[in-house]
């Protein structure tokens, strides 16, 4: 193999104990994701898809198995080391946006940089740039409740982009948006992908997953299917700039 994968997991398992019973959320999953891939992870609820996403996002650690992120073994890292990886290498986009309600867009985008230890000037500069990138330069000082759903998700995407992470991990990013706004957001992801970003999209909607190059289908804690998308859905290239 010529390129080193961004994500390399081998035989990952995750077990939960619920009362007396043990639940195998993941029963030995292995996969690679390379730089600048656009991958969708699909699966019905209870398939282990969320658990996989949490582990990929370094929010959780596997019960057993190996997880290498950029060739670094993260499967046995402690909380603070994982926090550092999340801060520097992973950009999260959530279904419910997860913005801080009392802070304006600019501060929300700055937040990862604060935890990353950037100087105030660098933070402002980068946050401005990220907000410009998602087309919200004129909404910087609005609080989340003064923004539409689509705009909120754009702020969240700007927050994910601002540290120039190795991967962007989007969990049902269009789940709380109407179809049209959802399409716009998908267009934005496409642009980010074409600019060289690695994107992992978690969804249960087939038509959303079809935006990706590759779909990994998860069922009962196993990878059921891992295939390239032949007829990739392409949106208008300008979609990302539309508001």
């Amino acid at each position, binding site marked *: 193999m010529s390129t080193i994968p961004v994500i390399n997991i081998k035989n990952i398992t995750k077990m939960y104990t619920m009362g007396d019973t043990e639940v195998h959320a993941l029963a030995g999953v292995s996969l690679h994701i390379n730089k600048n891939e656009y991958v969708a992870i699909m699966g019905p609820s209870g398939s282990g898809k969320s658990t996989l996403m949490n582990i990929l996002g370094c929010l959780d650690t596997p019960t057993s198995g190996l997880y290498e992120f950029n060739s670094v073994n993260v499967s046995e890292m402690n909380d603070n080391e994982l926090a550092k990886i*999340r801060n520097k290498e992973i950009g999260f986009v959530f279904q419910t946006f997860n913005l801080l309600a009392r802070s304006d867009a600019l501060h929300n985008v700055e937040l990862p940089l604060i935890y990353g230890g950037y100087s105030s000037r660098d933070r402002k500069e980068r946050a401005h740039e990220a907000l410009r990138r998602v087309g919200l330069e004129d909404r910087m000082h609005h609080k989340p409740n003064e923004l539409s759903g689509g705009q909120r998700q754009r702020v969240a995407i700007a927050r994910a982009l601002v540290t120039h992470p190795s991967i962007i991990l989007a969990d049902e990013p269009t789940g709380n948006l109407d179809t049209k706004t959802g399409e716009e957001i998908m267009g934005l992801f496409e642009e980010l992908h074409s600019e060289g970003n690695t994107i992992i999209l978690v969804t249960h909607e087939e038509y959303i997953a079809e935006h990706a190059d590759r779909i990994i289908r998860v069922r009962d804690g196993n990878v059921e299917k891992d295939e390239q998308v032949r007829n990739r859905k392409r949106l208008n290239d300008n979609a990302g700039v539309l508001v």
Partner: protein
Amino acid sequence: MRAFSYNIAFYLAELREGLSIAFHAIRANKMRSILTTLGIVIGIVSVTLMGTAIEGLNRAFNESVGKLGADVLFVQKFPWQGDEDWATLRNRPDIRFEHARAVERNATLASNITTVAGARQPIRYGNKIVESIVVVGTDDEFDDTQNLSLALGRFMSAAEAGGGRPVTVLGSQIAENLFPSENPLGKTVKIGNYSYRVIGVIDKQGNLLGMESLDNRAYVPINRFFREFKSFRGGMDIWVKVADRTQVEDAKEELRGILRKARHLAPKAKDNFAINQQEIIVQLFNAIGGVVAGVGLFITGLSLFVGGIGIMNIMFVSVTERTKEIGIRKAIGAPRRTILMQFLMESAALCLLGGILGIAIAFPLSLIIDTVLPTAMPLSVVVIAILISIVVGIVSGFLPAYRASRLDPVDALRYE
């Protein structure tokens, strides 16, 4: 160097973020913050007032005991402090003129030596009467030993003292009571059954240890005193003012030697007299005062403790309410320490607010205390109160903050 400045910048950014979060959180829950802070306010008010009162008590004491003079040694029959048996003390021979004369002859380190004896008597002028004053028999050196200043007239002269002339110097309170609208100088008053001519009035002096008014005294020559008010066998005190303050201990030793000789004590016999000094009272007071202060501060400290529990309680609520926010912050890379700091700062800020409010309330109250005890809230109490409130905030915020910092990001994000 680069890494160092990078770290400083990082901590500063983190600190500013923490402060702004704390500020927003307190403002967002105004009512709750005020009610929670009330416990701290009450705690700080009671602790600062207690501190102020103790300070006032100390000052009042020092001012009062200062009237005795740090450089005056009191040769008396009984010690001011000690655990000697009362029966043995009672059988000690009195202090007499001959002892005073021996001191006068031999003391090299003394600047003034005076003999003092006292008795309670009524004093009369015309139809005015003061039932119970302290008549002090003494000599012409007394005013120098005590640094008395006179409002009117003069103190008794050596001739008057030696000759036992019927002259008296009045305390300011007696003069006020007997001569509300007259000049007392030259007037004749009756002390007990005997007539005395007023030759001076002493400036207002105040109380000695809050008990006996120094202004309710009349001074007469000691010879006459023993003739008219008290049998000689009552004995007297010898007050010795030391010339050089740094030689008080040496003077005490010298005095002891002179007295032992004058009282014919065998080399191994115990002293049968006491040389008292202000320091004994100071030590006694410090021992008692320390206990009083400790108990007082402990009891008022309890209210602060209760306030701290209130803060802890509300911080637990705050952490639970903001579980989702904690999840978001953790997801985007906030380490545990940052979350911990954030909540510690919030509770510290809450308590600091309480501390400042508490001082703002306690200050005017301390002015009321000032009317009884000579005190103003000392800056040290203010500073300590502020520090204590911050410490209370950090201590009571620690458990909730620690819990927040340990939250699992996945669970926290899922929390609604």
